[in-house]
């Protein structure tokens, strides 16, 4: 069974999507470690190390995602998580912005998969299977 870390980064308290992600990924055969809302980059990294996770799925809904996610890849590298997959989704920037540009910004920061608003976790299952298996 593959392990994934999920949680909501920064000062963000949007809990509904997080609870659904937990339920859906578990139903689909993943070992889900949910660190919940208001989580720091360190919380994600520590959980990933402790549980030897294959992927970190960061949610950011409240608009500060761009600030909260900076240097996440570098910190993973530093912690020895060079191969961990980094996903981010929700409403990751402030306002309605052109998504191709937003995606580029986050990919440049080292994220493997970047999701626009409106993508349900169900829609990302195929990617997860492709990237880390079940």
């Amino acid at each position, binding site marked *: 069974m593959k392990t994934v870390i999920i949680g909501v980064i920064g000062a963000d*308290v949007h*809990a509904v999507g997080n609870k*659904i992600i937990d339920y859906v990924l578990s139903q689909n055969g993943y070992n889900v470690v949910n660190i919940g809302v208001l989580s720091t980059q360190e919380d994600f990294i520590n959980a990933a190390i402790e549980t030897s996770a294959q992927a970190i799925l960061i949610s950011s809904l409240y608009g500060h995602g761009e600030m909260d996610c900076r240097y996440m890849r570098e910190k993973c590298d530093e912690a020895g998580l060079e191969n961990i997959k980094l996903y981010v989704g929700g409403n990751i920037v402030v306002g309605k912005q052109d998504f191709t540009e937003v995606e580029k910004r986050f990919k440049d920061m080292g994220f493997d998969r970047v999701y626009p608003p409106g993508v349900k976790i169900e829609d990302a299952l195929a990617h997860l299977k492709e990237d880390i298996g079940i």
Partner: protein
Amino acid sequence: MVKNVKIPLEEFLEIRKEVLLQWPTGSHPMLDLEESVKRLKSVPAHKNFALKLRDAKAKGITLIQPRAGVARINEHIELLQYLEKEGRADFLPSTIDSYTRHNRYQNAEDGINESEAKGRSLLNGFPAVNHGVDGCTKVFESVNSPLQARHGTPDARLLSEIIHASMWTSNEGGGISYNIPYAKNISLEDTIIYWQYVDRLVGYYQEQGIELNREPYGPLTGTLVPPSISNTVAIIESLLAAEQGVKNITVGYGQGGNLVQDVAALRALEEQTNSYLKLFGYEDVFVTTVFHQWMGGFPENASEAMGLIAYASTVAALGKATKMITKTSHESFGVPTKEANAEGLRTSKMVVNLLRDQKMAESEELEREITQIKKEVDNLIHAVVRVGKGDIASGIVAAFKNGLIDVPFAPSELNAGKILPARDIEGKIRILEFGNLAFDEEVRAFHLQKLQERAVQQNREISIQMTIDDIYAVSDGYLVGKSKQ
């Protein structure tokens, strides 16, 4: 242990000194109470939130207010002026950014600077504490409508000091409603104490003859919250505020989706807030209601979003809410542009104006829902009083700890998180998992019966899958979730 007792003036003034030290802008000379009393007395009636609400209530009309806030002062002013002029907003907000809500003023400062550098707002709201009395006063002076801070701040003491000193005449929030949906593990005792302070400040001004409005935050998590749960929290927060001397309270409710249940919820909320205030001995509190347009996940399609917004406005008008908080066609994407925000306002205004002379007809169905909600609220408040041994402040803390009161999907660890709501076949929000919720047997049986009706009609089991389907339903364009085969 926290108690529902008015903070003595000297004690209040002592704490106040510390509060003002939390960030440099707290030492602004205008924060001298005598100074701010003078300034607040100079606020004309049409810019006083409390008085404009009284006027609207007398006329029986529904006024509208957007959400809006950006990092930089001038941009924020431009935004509010636009919403006032193009959107015809009756009340103006300043939605506070998330760093300020968590008292991370240094992060907010960085956000302002970065926003200045990039020329666009990187914060999701207006950092009022960092802008201080000068900045907030400038905002007040640049508009013609009453101003309110809208946020989600567990400890909003400094923020509240600054906004009132800047002549903002209303403040949203409460010790429960700005904790449970907005925090992970901040003690409920603490937030109640913080908000007693905020209310005491308003009570202080009231003693000086200045009527300010306070608005407990109604919708909580905005997601399938059964009306009786949010109404109970609103009523408790009203009682806590009244004890501190607040005299003008707007209780809130977030659209659930079923027209009759929503109107019933508004009616029950107003009636029970008034009757519990009287029961607990607070005689001269003026109560109004605010209806929040759909607070859950929005459809992506702009036209669909507008349909939802207009439908919500119909409900608010028929339910005779005195105020309505509007949404926009950008809701599912991110903080809206000022144009999208104004469009949402205009659509909303059209509908409430069209319906200003109509109200929902009295019917058995409406009567039944009102009675049902009231009965449930009575159950819950009774539990609070019981575990608080007569004190609602300590009672609500204990009630949350025991799960006697429980808010669905709340991020807070203080919340039991055991109940699961789902819609019945008409879209009314009911409960399928009660956890330890203080509902009596009769009430529980009613909920289960209603869900059983849906299960039969939809040919499915009562289960968490109903809840999940219902969470997605509105953004997919339905109210009652359909089971996928």
